[in-house]
């Protein structure tokens, strides 16, 4: 698997070490421009924007806007892009990016049809690219690079990896971790859709070998079985770093979609009980409240 840190950070001898270029697709839209500015303020090296028909203009007087992803990639050699287009245009935007050679695609839009996500994933597989999302808050290495829509305030550089299906719970729990003195080495938003470009187990693969990793926090929710798969993987690998989980949706009624397209319990498939019991089996404590996560993590670390 492609090394996510190499993509986000690079190697010390790269000319663009720690300032990898990011292209923003849909940079002139209300949402895209707001978050492009926020990312730039955080220190992310936004090198280009793409809005068909607006090629040749500049965003914030500095960032060149191109008509197509091919032109943007030709002009900047960036390997990372973030998509802010309406859901029905996601597949087209994703294909443009992947065909132009993008290797890390962060898909922000919510409400992307599953079939479109699966088609984009097929192409990504052929091209050896990673898709994060859709319906993700994004990915970040705190204090270095933010490719997403998360506020910067909850995050601090450190040695805990946080993987989360939910956006606001990612902020909430990272905030609690930061306040308890646990900074984050990387945080990855999986997204709340039924089909994820990067599943919890894929995200785990990305972070498990971080040399100075001190702990792992998994923020799951009802729906699907990706938490169960991850718990199984952690057991199979004998992963020993302190790990804590949180599962949202214990009180949710069955067979109702709880906001996220993926947050639905069908029969017993996707239930909180199933996830909690698998984590228990893997000896991973599950917090009852977000605020309990750092407490359990500290407890795990003392052992």
């Amino acid at each position, binding site marked *: 698997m492609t090394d996510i840190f190499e993509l986000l950070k690079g190697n010390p001898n790269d000319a663009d070490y720690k300032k990898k270029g990011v292209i923003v697709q849909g940079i002139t839209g209300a949402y895209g421009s707001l978050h492009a500015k926020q990312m730039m303020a955080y220190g992310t090296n936004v090198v280009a924007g793409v809005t068909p028909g607006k090629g040749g203009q500049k965003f914030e007087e500095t960032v060149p806007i191109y008509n197509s992803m091919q032109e943007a990639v030709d002009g900047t050699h960036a390997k990372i892009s973030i998509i802010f287009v309406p859901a029905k245009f996601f597949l087209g935007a994703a294909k443009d990016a992947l065909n132009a050679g993008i290797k890390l695609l962060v898909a922000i839009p919510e409400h992307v049809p*599953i*079939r479109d996500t699966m088609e984009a994933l097929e192409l990504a597989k052929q091209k050896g690219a990673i898709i994060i999302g859709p319906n993700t808050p994004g990915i970040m290495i705190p204090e270095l690079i933010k490719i997403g829509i998360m*506020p910067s305030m909850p995050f601090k550089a450190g040695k805990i990896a946080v993987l989360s299906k939910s956006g606001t719970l990612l902020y909430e729990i990272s905030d609690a971790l930061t306040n308890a003195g646990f900074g984050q080495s990387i945080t990855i938003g999986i997204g709340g859709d039924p089909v994820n470009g990067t*599943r919890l187990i894929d995200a785990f693969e990305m972070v498990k070998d971080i040399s100075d990793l001190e702990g792992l926090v998994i923020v799951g929710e009802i729906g699907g079985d990706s938490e169960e798969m991850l718990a199984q993987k952690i057991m199979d690998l004998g992963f020993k770093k302190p790990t804590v989980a949180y599962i949202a949706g214990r*009180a949710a009624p069955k067979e109702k979609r709880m906001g*996220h397209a993926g947050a639905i319990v069908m029969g017993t498939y996707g239930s909180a009980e199933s996830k909690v019991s698998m984590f228990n089996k893997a000896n991973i404590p599950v917090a009852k409240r977000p605020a309990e996560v750092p407490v359990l993590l500290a407890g795990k670390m003392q052992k």
Partner: protein
Amino acid sequence: MQLLEFQAKELFREYGISLLDSMSSTNIEEGKKHAKQLGYPFVIKIQVPVGGRGKAGGIQKCQNEDEFDIKYPQVMDLKIKGEKARAILLEKMADIKKELYLSIFLNRSKRCYTIIASSEGGVEIESVKNQIIKEIGLGDVSDEIAREIANKMGLKGITAEGVVDTLKKLSKLTIEKEAELVEINPLAIMQDDTVMALDGKFVTDDNANFRHDELQKYQEKTEIEKQAEKSGFSLVELDGDIAVVGNGAGLVMSTLDMLSDNGGKPACFLDVGGGATTESVYEALTLISKLDRVKGILVNLYGGIVKTTVVAEAFLKAYENNLIDLPVYSRLKGTESEKAKEMLKGSRIKIFDSVEEAINAAVMGRKK
């Protein structure tokens, strides 16, 4: 959305899947007409968007008019897992040899469609034995794959042909309507060895709704849910009395969990989306004001970029305009929270630093 049995069967019929004669009605007069057309005996089946209706008495055999007069209203008045009858389906009785199971579903963790088949159907999927599982990518089922499945089910002759045909039709249906699940349970082997779908389940991908105008007639939404959708919110009505509002599905679910842990009963799940503005919070309060059972409002907003003063403004405006007359217990995390607290001093809106405190106050407030 999850279609009702009779709606799923409308689609099955359109795609040429074999079915028994059946007719759906919403009142007994209409039902009586259908009974005459169908002729006794038949089965009375409640139409609800949840499983487990058989065990709950929602499927009744009916031999004659006297039974009909008793059983139709009985079934109509049932509640299955809290769900009222949406309609009643009358369906001819079948003389069957055996029950099979057949479904195509979106396998989320494998990220592909998957066939599940079994020669021992008729029970809930969790209890279906000898499951044959086959991954089929984006949903296409070739003749070869369909035959392989029928073989593994141990079927022969026209029964095998029937299953092959049904599977290919299910596949077409899955792809063309962008289903997350299409299930026939049971698929019955009749006395003449042909197969027929006795039940049908169909779940569509709501995110693909914009490509499927033809399915929108099946959309079942309350007025409030429709309004919520228009505002870009997600709302799930629940049967408690404390309305729960927040930004982000995960955070609102988490708030529901904590409220329930503390003995509170949520009246709704309302996610106003990742951001929060004066307008969106005001709109959310407008929606809640239309739910009669609500005794208090619990608000959990993780602002980040959002200014809490903006949220406070929405609360004040809602009281000013007499939109709500309920206590609000809120936790507002974000910038300018001190200023927001100052703005709300002396009002019925309480701001707490932690969600736990807000929840406790909401639960206590309800008991008063």
